[in-house]
């Protein structure tokens, strides 16, 4: 079924990014795309195991949100977490090594594709159960407010972004956390990546109210419908939400309309979705669209963009070599990390 809900339009009256910012965002989206393409290939070749959920098509959301935040802000993801982690600054080497189950992975090979964590980069995880990351993200946001008000730390103004899908918004933890976030005015952004599907369950078959952003209003919080294929639209909406959160005014819900190009996971034959629907979204590819924008606005030349793509090709090759050459965790350390003292 072809898209019935029109994409919200976003009028860019003037350049929304400087050249430098634009190139950072572009590089981040290209990294997300190339990294996931490599994962698909590695899975087919039997190099990467387990359940692997790829992010192709949704890059404008991770890059648009996370690159509009600070490096000391928090990011909380799901099982579809490679690209959120990369955008948050986790080195591609560590993400790839994690997929290989290696000791050098960001979760020391104990987590795998669905469990990327990085304390250093404030990535709270990698949560493989639907909705369970949302309360954890809420806790990080609560901690920020607590640090500021109960501990008198004036510098505590971090914002937390919680990412999750359309299907997840039918889970109680979503509603419970919206309530608490609004109640306590916590500095959190709920980023719904509405890609219209939850595995094989079409969004309108699961949700009585399909326009998720509207659910914010009953909790007294702003909710915005955002074109999730337009990185600048996502970035602009995020900036507003971040500003609000840092000012202590509370949470915001962003519903980003997007699409995953590949099956739910690499194991999904993806037979349910209509080719016309896929084409509709592919025609709005966020990377191509942003490329066109950068060129149009004279923020970058073809050469600039090509050199970024070449650089990322190298980054992905390098991270693959790194992962392959990295050691497995030592068998003697099977029990390490169960307790804090380990």
């Amino acid at each position: 079924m072809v898209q019935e809900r029109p994409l919200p339009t976003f009028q860019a009256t003037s350049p929304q990014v400087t050249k430098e910012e634009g190139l950072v965002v572009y590089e981040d989206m290209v990294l997300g795309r190339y990294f996931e393409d490599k994962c698909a290939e590695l899975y087919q070749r039997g190099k990467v195991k387990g359940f692997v959920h790829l992010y192709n098509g949704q890059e404008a959301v991770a890059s648009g949100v996370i690159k509009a935040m600070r490096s000391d802000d928090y990011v909380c993801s799901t099982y579809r977490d490679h690209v959120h982690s990369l955008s948050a600054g986790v080195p591609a080497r560590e993400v790839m090594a994690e997929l290989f189950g290696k000791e050098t992975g960001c979760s020391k090979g104990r987590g795998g594709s669905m469990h990327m964590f990085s304390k250093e980069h404030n990535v709270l995880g990698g949560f493989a159960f639907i909705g369970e990351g949302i309360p954890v993200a809420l806790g990080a946001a609560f901690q920020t407010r607590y640090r500021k008000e109960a501990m008198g730390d004036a510098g505590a103004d971090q914002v937390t972004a919680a990412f999750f899908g359309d299907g997840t918004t039918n889970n109680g933890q979503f509603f419970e956390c919206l309530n608490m976030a609004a109640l306590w005015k916590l500095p959190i952004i709920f980023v719904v990546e509405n890609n219209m599907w939850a595995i094989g369950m079409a969004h309108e078959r699961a949700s009585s109210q399909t326009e998720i952003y509207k659910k914010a209003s009953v909790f007294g919080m702003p909710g915005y419908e955002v074109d999730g294929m337009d990185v600048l639209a996502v970035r602009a909406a995020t900036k507003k939400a971040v500003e609000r959160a840092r000012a202590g005014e509370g949470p915001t819900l962003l519903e980003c309309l997007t699409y995953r190009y590949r099956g739910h996971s690499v194991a999904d034959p993806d037979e349910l979705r209509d080719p016309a629907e896929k084409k509709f979204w592919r025609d709005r590819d966020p990377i191509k669209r942003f490329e066109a924008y950068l060129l149009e606005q004279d923020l970058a030349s073809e050469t600039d963009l090509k050199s970024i793509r070449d650089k990322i090709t190298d980054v992905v090759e390098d991270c693959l070599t790194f992962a392959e050459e990295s050691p497995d965790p030592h068998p003697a350390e099977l029990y390490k990390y169960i307790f804090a003292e380990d």
Partner: protein
Amino acid sequence: MAETFLFDALREAIDEEMSRDQTVMVMGEDVGQYGGSYKVTKDLYEKYGELRVLDTPIAENSFTGMGIGAAMTGLRPIIEGMNMGFLLLAFNQISNNAGMLRYTSGGNFKIPVVIRGPGGVGSQLGAEHSQRLEAYFQAVPGLKIVACSTPRNAKGLLKAAIRDDNPVLFFEHVLLYFNKEDLPDDEYILPLDKAETVRTGKDVTILTYSRMRYHAMKAVEALEKKGYDPEVIDLISLKPIDYDTIGASIKKTHRVVIVEECMRTGGIGAEIIASINDRFFDELDGPVIRLSSQDIPTPYNKGLEDLTIVQPAQIEEAVEKIMQGRL
């Protein structure tokens, strides 16, 4: 120091730790303005304010997860289950995120939370309010599980649990909140992983925990008169189990009776028997006797409820049996 109720001993532990460490906070249903359903947080709201004693909506899974997220980012939350049974709704957060996340994250995060509240079979509270979740949670890796039983150990253990860098499930018992005891004037902390020898003896090792400690001691009174000399060990730590203390006792008595309030199937005792067989089989004179609650939803009717949990007379009988080799 004046006699202190168990609920007040817990309150003192929380109060002392909150004043010692600004990152310690309490959250849960009715913990703030109302002071906690068993008054464990009475007056703390007035003293520490609404952020440090946070009244939450009735959303167990989400506020437990929130406590975990706050712990991952540097706070030390004490999450109160109004009744521990309600935390069945938080099973996912307790298992996946409190218990397993540190490991899954390859040591990126530690989760210093205490999840505490009343459990056990009360007085005719019905099946849902009479649960013993310790048995359900014992298989979750990464959790520590503690059951306090006296005002003294309640205070010392809770302080230790708050300072511990790992997630600790801390079980109190609904029927023990009004137990009274003189507490030491000086600050004290008790180890989370050590069993408490309640009575030293040489004939038989009675392993018990929480309220069943009192049923065991009642049986011991009668057994003493009959000339028996049982050793009673309060496990305190249900995960990990203190097999050093248990082993030392078995090497002395060679006989074991387990008395527990959880149900027989998949209970704490089942786990202990398996481990005793693994570790101390050669020390045993005969099979371990296990006295547990019946495998049924706890009935409301007083007579049926009494039949559901282990009574002192049954413990007495079991000890006599094992002593006389009538197994």
